[in-house]
């Protein structure tokens, strides 16, 4: 009880400071005075009396110190005092403080920004019951990304025959057009969900009810569940939403409830407005496929589930192999899904982890840098510290003081870094999602969100604290180790120990080494990106505008689109700045296409070797528009319409099926069709779906020879920037076909870039962070050299007096810098090599046998080192011998 009361009083003492230092001092002064008077009364002289009094009373300083400790909560008070002192030291050295804080801000800010992307993607659990039990099913074909899409019959087979899942749910994100009374027609993001979806996730409705098993029947009335935010934005939280009739994709549905507020989707980054029973999707689409998520039964491990699902999956593989034997190579994989499904995680996860490693190294450079600066300043402060030690400050106390200073620096750096990250994160998300934002279209189905939320800020605070201790501990230790008596005795210049000098150089070497790793890794990522963008594309990605039309609501039947489309193409080509215009079913690197088996008379191949050939229905001038060379034969013509079927094949296709002989004039059929196509031309290979894969065998067919027009993607080759003609193109479309909807306008370059966002992200950011690291190293090196030169002014003066030239002095400083950088490069090279191997394990097709990135990093570091040495070297050359010697 008494201790409690004392503690409270101490706390209030800390806060109210009711007995200030002055107050205490006055009390002690009186004590000493009274003692002295007593001594004087005993007959001592005033001087002797005062001395006796001081001796008997003991040191005022010590008494003050004990009372301060007693007064408040000592550690809190000391911390405040240490922090105040630290702030004072910072103000006294504004340049040092600014550089240190800025370095740390860059390092910590980069970590904060990347972590804010990693956290929701990799770590945050879904707001559902027992998220750790959720696993997702992934189909894997060798050499292709995994995907979570299974046909309905496969879903039923898995659901009804497994013994490892308490529930197996299926979902499919889609866009849906929703309209209704007082509800303007709009395209929303929807999700088809199996009847057990909500119950299995343990979700409770915010209002009404959620989708149940009986709703997910082909003959059931269509129900819809809306998201909290949709309820808020479209219905203003009106409870009357339950029972409302709406129209979804042209079919009536009834809203039965609102999903819980915290729940968005199990699909990461997806924010559906409406959930519909999977049966609706099955009715509309015969190729309906679902993403599958299982909830493990209690006690069942993911390993057991994998084993069982591999057995069950044989059924799926056999079904698929009936039509395509090569699909026997399919496998099934299971992954934890407690943080949401992994589609985006597969796509972004590893690049983000690579970036996380990079920013960690950047922070390490920043810490090392600041440690070096603190160390140099520690030398300057050694006398101050020595004085404090001899005045009775405990070593522990000084250590704490120095650590408080460094944590304070880190804290300020962290605060500034958070501000940097706040703006940086927006830019990051824009990069991540760039290329997908398209003129006049709803956003992508999946949206990465990154906020500086409480979790991220906690991370930042922890990183700052850790950084502060990391870079503070060595200088603090060094400062303390130097014996106070010794450093008081010595002059200011000779005060620092050899070990400390070595340590300072070691820090620079370490920084150069880390920086080399960062720069060479950035070099690898950049050359990887360059390769993806430029090597073996087979088309020219610059100067092409892509416009997608949607005739479904134009009232124009696909059979009657041929003439309007042909008119449109000639009108488009008449626009100034347009060189060619064409249309096609798919455009390069759009990410979706069609493929069939091809039969060539007389050509035999083993069933397992038989692979799909990619297909594209194109108009005349397609190859001209995309810059794909016509190697043999002729292009399509509008006049082919109504004539014998013709086709153009790429060189891979020609080589595979027709050998070295000329393919032109040869014939083939598509699997399941009788009609023969005659090859009229051969074109160069061009990448089709994905930049990461080599150009597949491809057949181009004339879109104008089909019975219906199903190619709606217009491509326009321009002489100027493609976006410059976008307005003219849209106007022209409206003139030719007023009812036609334009659903997408973008450029080919953007479409290509949108397919390699992770690579661009990693390349850009690794270069950015690598450059920042190099700048930090430059600053650190400059600081060390400037300091060294200023301390060696005497020596330089003597040397010059003895006949050394300015040139010699410059050479001496530059050689010193080059030596440090070279040492760093030697240390760093193996790590750079090893880092590259590590990265190549995470990112496929990384060009790792190329020595240039490491050479690039090494040269860059040398340049940085010499640039950093320039000013100190000039300074050394300007030392006037007479001046320097006078200071000896």
């Amino acid at each position: 009880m008494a201790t409690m009361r004392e503690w409270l009083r101490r706390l209030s003492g800390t806060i109210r400071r009711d007995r200030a230092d002055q107050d205490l001092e006055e009390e002690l002064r009186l004590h000493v005075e009274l003692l002295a008077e007593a001594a004087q009364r005993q007959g001592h002289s005033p001087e002797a009396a005062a001395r006796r009094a001081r001796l008997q009373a003991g040191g005022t300083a010590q008494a003050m110190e004990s009372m301060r400790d007693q007064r408040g909560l000592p550690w809190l008070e000391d911390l405040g005092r240490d922090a105040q002192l630290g702030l004072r030291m910072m103000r006294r050295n504004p340049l040092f403080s600014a550089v240190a804080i800025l370095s740390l801000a860059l390092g910590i800010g980069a970590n904060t920004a990347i972590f804010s992307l990693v956290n929701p993607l990799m770590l945050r659990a879904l707001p559902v019951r027992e998220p750790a039990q959720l696993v997702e099913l992934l189909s894997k074909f060798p050499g292709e990304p995994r995907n979570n899409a299974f046909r309905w019959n496969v879903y039923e087979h898995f659901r009804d025959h497994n013994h490892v899942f308490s529930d197996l749910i299926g979902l499919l994100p889609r866009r849906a057009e929703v309209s209704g009374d007082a509800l303007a027609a709009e395209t929303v993001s929807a999700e088809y969900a199996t009847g057990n979806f909500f119950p299995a996730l343990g979700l409770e409705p915010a209002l009404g009810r959620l989708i149940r098993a009986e709703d997910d029947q082909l003959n059931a009335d269509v129900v819809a569940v809306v998201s909290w935010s949709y309820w808020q934005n479209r219905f203003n939280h009106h409870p009357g939403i339950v029972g409302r009739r709406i129209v979804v994709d042209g079919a009536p549905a009834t809203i039965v409830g609102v999903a819980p507020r915290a729940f968005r989707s199990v699909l990461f980054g997806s924010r559906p407005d409406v959930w519909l029973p999977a049966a609706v999707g099955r009715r509309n689409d015969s190729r309906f496929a679902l993403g599958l998520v299982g909830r493990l039964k209690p006690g069942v491990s993911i390993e057991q589930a994998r084993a069982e699902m591999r057995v069950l999956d044989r059924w799926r593989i056999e079904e698929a192999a009936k039509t395509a034997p090569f699909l026997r190579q399919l496998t099934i994989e299971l992954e934890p899904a407690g943080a949401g499904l992994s589609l985006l995680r597969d796509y972004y996860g590893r690049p983000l982890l690579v970036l996380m490693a990079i920013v960690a190294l950047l922070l390490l450079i920043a810490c090392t840098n600041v440690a070096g600066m603190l160390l140099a300043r520690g030398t300057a402060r050694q006398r101050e510290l020595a004085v404090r030690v001899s005045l009775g400050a405990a070593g522990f106390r000084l250590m704490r003081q120095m650590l408080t200073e460094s944590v304070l620096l880190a804290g300020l750096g962290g605060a500034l870094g958070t501000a940097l990250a706040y703006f940086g994160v927006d830019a990051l998300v824009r990069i991540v999602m760039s290329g997908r934002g398209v003129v006049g279209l709803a956003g992508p189905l999946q949206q990465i969100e990154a906020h500086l939320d409480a979790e991220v800020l906690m991370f930042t605070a922890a990183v700052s604290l850790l950084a502060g201790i990391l870079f503070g501990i060595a200088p603090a230790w060094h400062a303390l180790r130097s014996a106070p008596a010794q450093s008081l005795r010595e002059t200011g210049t000779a005060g620092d120990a050899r070990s400390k000098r070595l340590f300072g150089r070691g820090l620079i070497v370490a920084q150069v080494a880390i920086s080399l790793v960062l720069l060479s890794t950035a070099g690898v990522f950049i050359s990887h990106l360059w390769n993806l963008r430029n090597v073996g594309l087979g088309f020219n990605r610059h100067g092409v505008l892509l416009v997608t039309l949607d005739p479904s609501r134009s009232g124009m039947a696909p059979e009657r689109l041929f003439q309007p489309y042909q008119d449109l193409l000639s009108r488009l080509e008449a626009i100034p700045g347009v060189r060619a215009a064409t249309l096609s079913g798919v455009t390069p690197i759009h990410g979706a296409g069609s493929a069939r088996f091809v039969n060539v008379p007389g050509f035999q191949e083993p069933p397992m070797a038989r692979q799909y050939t990619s297909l594209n229905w194109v108009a005349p001038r397609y190859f001209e528009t995309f810059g794909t060379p016509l190697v043999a034969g002729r292009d399509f013509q509008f006049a082919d319409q109504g004539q014998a079927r013709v086709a153009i094949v790429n060189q891979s296709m020609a080589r595979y099926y027709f050998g070295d002989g000329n393919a032109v004039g040869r014939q083939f059929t598509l699997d399941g069709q009788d009609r023969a196509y005659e090859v009229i031309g051969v074109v160069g290979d061009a990448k089709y779906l994905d930049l990461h894969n080599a150009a597949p065998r491809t057949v181009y067919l004339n879109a104008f020879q089909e019975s219906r027009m199903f190619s709606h993607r217009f491509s326009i080759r321009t002489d100027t920037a493609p976006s410059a003609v976008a307005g003219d193109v849209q106007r022209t479309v409206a003139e030719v076909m007023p009812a036609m909807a334009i659903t997408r306008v973008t450029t080919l370059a953007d479409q290509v870039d949108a397919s390699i966002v992770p690579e661009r992200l990693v390349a850009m950011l690794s270069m950015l962070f690598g450059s920042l690291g190099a700048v930090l190293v430059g600053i650190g090196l400059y600081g060390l050299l400037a300091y060294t030169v200023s301390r060696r002014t005497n020596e330089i003066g003597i040397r010059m007096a003895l006949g050394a030239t300015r040139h010699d002095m410059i050479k001496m400083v530059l050689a010193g810098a080059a030596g440090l950088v070279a040492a760093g490069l030697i240390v760093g090279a193996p790590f750079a090599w090893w880092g590259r191997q590590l990265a190549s394990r995470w990112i496929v097709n990384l060009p790792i046998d190329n020595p240039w990135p490491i050479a690039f990093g090494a040269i860059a570091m040398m340049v940085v080192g010499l640039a950093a040495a320039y000013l100190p070297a000039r300074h050394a050359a300007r030392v006037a011998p007479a001046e320097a010697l006078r200071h000896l």
Partner: protein
Amino acid sequence: MSNKDKAGVLQGTLDLMVLQTLATLGPQHGYAIAARLEQVSGGALQLNMGTLYPALMRLEQRGLLRGEWGVTDNSRKARFYAITAAGRRQLGAGKAEWDRMADIMRTLLHEQG
């Protein structure tokens, strides 16, 4: 003379001495308390400031003393300490405890001696 007190003050006994002094003499400033203790101990107990004033502060924080600035007989500003009701209770309890402990020690030491 060193900075150390002439007689090592047993932990806790100083509190009791201070309380007793104030209970007997009424409000006193720090120097007067020290002088009184020196006098009573026949010069054996010379408290330095680093011992006395933190103790006063501790007692005040526990609510056993109340300190207030006042004026001495010859018009000097000084901080006077007065024992509080809680201080008197504490003194009573402390005295009883001290007597009990002293009895035990005496008995024990005489047996052995």
